């Protein structure tokens, strides 16, 4: 196996919650995602899908085992390093879109790049425009984000996830809150990102129809990976 092509890999990942009762949410999870793969995590409600996603993406800590993201071991890092990883290498799309309501669509997309500070402000805003164009939202750029429809907001969130050209995009039920038409659009965008830009994507979904159209499905049952 060529380790270099792995964007993400876990070895013996276990996670416990202690409150309100001792509960093992992840049991000896060993998964790996290769560059350019579009992978979905499925499983019954409460099977640990979200927990796995957030643990892999540095937001949830307090686990045992090893997580390697783009060659770096996450468990050995301090909070500021996790913030840097999320800023540079990870894009997030949540079920609820979480845009900053008082900022314009363009500003929302630009924020992670402003934090990164790799480019000038001018370049950042031109990149943000490009991403919005890619998602068919360039005409909405200067509107306040709260003025957009749910489907549009989710596409803005995808543009924001793309702004720093991340190694991997994590989505927790990114279509879960959309009607079937918008859901189809958003899924189509993921598919296109994978095919056109070789973007690595890992999403949680309970829609088996959508899951079956991804490259690969990881099925969780009571915190364990099972064969489908």
């Amino acid at each position, binding site marked *: 196996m060529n380790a270099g092509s792995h964007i993400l890999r876990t070895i013996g990942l276990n996670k416990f919650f202690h409150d309100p009762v001792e509960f093992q949410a992840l049991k000896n999870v060993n998964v790996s995602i290769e560059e350019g793969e579009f992978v979905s995590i499925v499983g019954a409600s409460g099977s640990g899908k979200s927990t796995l996603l957030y643990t892999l993406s540095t937001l949830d800590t307090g686990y045992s085992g090893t997580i390697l993201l783009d060659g770096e071991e996450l468990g050995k890092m301090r909070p*500021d390093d996790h913030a840097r990883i999320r800023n540079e290498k990870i894009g997030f799309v949540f079920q609820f879109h979480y845009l900053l309501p008082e900022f314009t669509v363009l500003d929302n997309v630009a924020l992670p790049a402003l934090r990164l500070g790799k480019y000038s402000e001018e370049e950042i805003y031109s990149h943000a425009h490009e991403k919005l164009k890619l998602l068919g939202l360039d005409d909405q750029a200067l509107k306040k984000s709260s003025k957009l429809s749910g489907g549009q907001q989710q596409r803005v969130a995808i543009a924001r996830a793309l702004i720093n050209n991340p190694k991997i995009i994590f989505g927790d039920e990114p279509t879960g809150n959309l009607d079937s038409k918008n859901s189809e659009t958003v899924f189509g965008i993921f598919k296109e990102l994978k095919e056109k830009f070789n973007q690595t994507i890992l999403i949680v979904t309970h829609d088996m129809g959508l899951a079956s159209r991804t490259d690969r499905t990881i099925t969780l049952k009571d915190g364990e990976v099972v064969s489908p």
Partner: protein
Amino acid sequence: MNSNKPLARIALTHLVAKKRQTIVATLGVMFGIAIFIFQAGLITGFQTTFIDKTINTTANIRIHNEADKNRKSIAGKLHDPRKDWVVVRNQKPREDDLKIRNGNEIVKIIERHPDVAGVSPFLASQVIFKMGIAQQAGFVSGVLIEKEDLLFGLSANMKEGNTTRLLTIPNGIILGAGLAEKLGAKMEDLLSIISPMGVTLEMKVVGINESGLTEVDKTRAFVNLRNAQKLLQVDGSYITDINIKLKNIDRAGELASEFEKRFGYKADDWKTANANIFGVFKLQNMVTSLVIASIMIVSGFGIFNILMMIIYEKMPDIAILKAVGFRNGDIKKIFLMESLIIGLFGGILGMGFGFIITHIVGSIPMNIKGFVSMKYLYFNQSPAFYVTAFLFALLVTGIAGYLPARKAAKIDPMDIIRSK
């Protein structure tokens, strides 16, 4: 991040979104600062006025003969107190206890001292002022008016008449303004003064003087030294005090001890003489500081409150900022900035407001007759107050902002993302 610009923009957006609360918090700081400037200016302005007037009526150094109330009795001098126990009851103070011997010679010697600007011999007597049926207790200062004028600038405070008339009219008297008012005395009026010795002198009002110290103006009059000696039935060399004006008042302490050693009489400098007043000032300053501090604490709570409100409302924003890579320190900075923006604007407005209000109040005629009489309230406009008040505003807002900022920095984005 090459600059804090995005953080500052987020901070500003939060404040604009909470316009009303932000304005209230800013006004809180503004009033705090304005009251700071007002209070400090008023109190120190009052104290400066009071010190100025007190220095004008207190000699830089006063030489006097301290009545030796614990004088040893003759019997006490004859016996060794370690062996014998001597008690003398009803021991009388000696009559000449207060006299400065060779007073006139001492005056001449001190006048030649290089650090001395002026010397004035002095003899005071308690008297009853009597004009028609009006009677008033008080005291007369027997002085050589030219010398006294040089020390205390009497001519500058003459409400009516002038000091030199005391030289040409031997039985002239200059009344304090409050005293003249009580007696109903006007210029050229005749009145009598009666001393404790029973001596009565007929005097003519040749001037009315207003020192500005209300208590003094109500009880004091000036007469020629010779008349005071007549009232007390003493000879022409009898004086009880020698008042001295120095070229540099800061040397009063050391020169007082020099004169005390040299002439063997008690010499008080003006600071020692007014020690109780400085004590009162200290208390005043303490109370003022307390008032100012409590106002600033209240403004601080205002800021603390609004920041906590913003944080609770903006939990999802904080979670998303952290999720996309903003660090705990960035979040802390955002909220500290919000607090300092309020401090900055409140501070600037407060300095402006303080400046305006002290100038308006300072230009309203008040004719205050309290401790000191003043036509206008005098505000000390020291730039130091403005700078201190401004720095204080930033300090208070910084502290008030720190706790919420730290709380915001500690928010775990997972708590918010999971709860949806």
